């Protein structure tokens, strides 16, 4: 299927730090993971990959980190084409947090686990510890001597993020960061992702199918269907396009539905991206 990307965000930029250039990947069992996938990441942005299960989001993000290699096309990260020789260097720049936090915590304690990455990068124990303490502070995780099995779901997710942050990546890729979390932990994760962009200058790529979260967080939204990006643009454009979203098996975010159903679209006001913005709009 040829990709037919709707660019709703104005002219394309040339400052991409990640460029997935027409990449295709087929699994050994014949399943097509991604097909002619074109995707970019720009500095200091949060970009969301929205699509239903099986759309190719996870396959794409594993290409960005070099866990998978493309059958066709190329992936460039900070000007380097990913290949087997430079994949270690790439992984220092692109950190990947998987959906299943449990499977990423393999050390005896939280501190051990967060130090895992920095030590593998060649830092001394003291340097790695400082990095780990910093990363755990960023995510607000204080119980550093706990064993992973005794952490709550939210804590596991925080530690998984800290474990990647400690490697000081320039890009953080997160797969379904809040899928199985309660609202309070989900909000905490969202705040952390926002602060990574704002305070630490890290670009964040989030694969998700929670359109409300995409609306709240994203600077740019990419819709993934059938292994390709079929549309990308600003959230106020993409997430209000009900036909587009339905075609990709997605639903409009609640704020967009309410805004549209309340007939506020016709009043020419700026489309809100969160319930707080909608409330503020209605009060004014």
């Amino acid at each position, binding site marked *: 299927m040829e990709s037919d990307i709707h660019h709703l965000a104005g002219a394309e930029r040339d400052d991409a730090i990640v460029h997935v250039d027409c990449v295709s990947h087929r*699994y*050994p*069992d014949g*399943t097509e993971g991604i097909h002619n996938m074109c995707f970019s990441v720009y500095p200091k942005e949060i970009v969301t990959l929205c699509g239903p299960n099986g759309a190719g989001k996870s396959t794409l993000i594993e290409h960005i980190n070099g866990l998978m290699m493309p059958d066709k096309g190329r992936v460039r990260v900070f000007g380097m084409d990913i290949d087997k020789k430079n994949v270690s260097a790439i992984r220092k720049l692109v950190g990947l947090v998987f959906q299943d936090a449990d499977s990423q915590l393999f050390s005896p304690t939280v501190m051990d686990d967060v130090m895992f990455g920095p030590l593998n990068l060649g830092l001394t124990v003291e340097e790695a510890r400082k990095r780990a303490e910093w990363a755990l502070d960023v995510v607000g995780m204080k119980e550093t001597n706990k064993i992973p099995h005794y952490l709550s779901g939210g804590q596991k997710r925080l530690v998984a993020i800290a474990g990647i942050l400690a490697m000081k990546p320039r890009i953080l890729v997160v797969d379904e960061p809040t899928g199985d979390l309660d609202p309070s932990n989900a909000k905490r994760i969202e705040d952390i992702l926002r602060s990574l962009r704002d305070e630490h200058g890290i670009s964040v790529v989030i694969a998700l199918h929670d359109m409300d979260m995409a609306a709240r967080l994203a600077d740019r939204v990419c819709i993934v269907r059938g292994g390709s990006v079929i549309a990308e643009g600003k959230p106020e454009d993409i997430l209000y396009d009900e036909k587009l979203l339905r075609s990709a098996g997605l639903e409009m975010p609640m704020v967009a539905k309410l805004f549209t159903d309340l007939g506020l679209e016709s009043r020419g006001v700026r489309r809100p991206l969160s319930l707080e913005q909608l409330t503020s709009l209605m009060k004014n």
Partner: protein
Amino acid sequence: MAHVHLEDGSFTLFWVLIWSALAAGLVSIALYRQGRGQIPTRKLAIASMCVAVGFAAFQIEIPVFGGVHLNLTPLMGILVGPALGSLSVLTINVFSAAIGHGGWSMIGANTLVNMVEVFLGFYAYRFLRGYAKVERFYSGFGAAAIALTVSALVAVLIVSVSEIQGSTQTRAQTMANMLVLAIANIVMGLFEGVVTGYIVSFLGKVRPDLIGESAPARTEGIEDRLEVAADV
């Protein structure tokens, strides 16, 4: 039980050292086959998960014949091959010794018995399914039954040669006693064979790549894959 598990104090120190040294030698060969002591990350993860699930599966009591616990070592051989399987069963024996399922000083002897199961489980399955084209259930059953029968006899041999510490019987008498136990273990081994057959059939439907019946899906690195056409 489908195995003979020996507790601490069953053998004299001399035989503990002998069987431990033999097991250590065979494990070293298994490690060498995996890449001179450096296991690729994927194989490390697979071996570890095999240990974890083998241990957890042992805790499942199948409510037949008064309650049966299985070790599933032939199944491990089928799934991960003899070398990786050997490392897994050694680790399982370490965990098991910690909780009293076999003794610490018996890890060597118990591992030897389990390695026979893993080894024969793999090669018997490969022969039955790959060469003789036997159906999955019967291949799994046959592989486990063969493996557990031979391992029961190996256990007889090990105990007969070492003699039970404190027993004044001759080796021949010890062997005669052990053969009676071996028969009981072989019968239980047949039951485990049935369970293994069902498990292999199940895996063949949901993840045939795990038993080597199609190209691996995202599981590169699993050793000794069978090259068998998928059974439709």
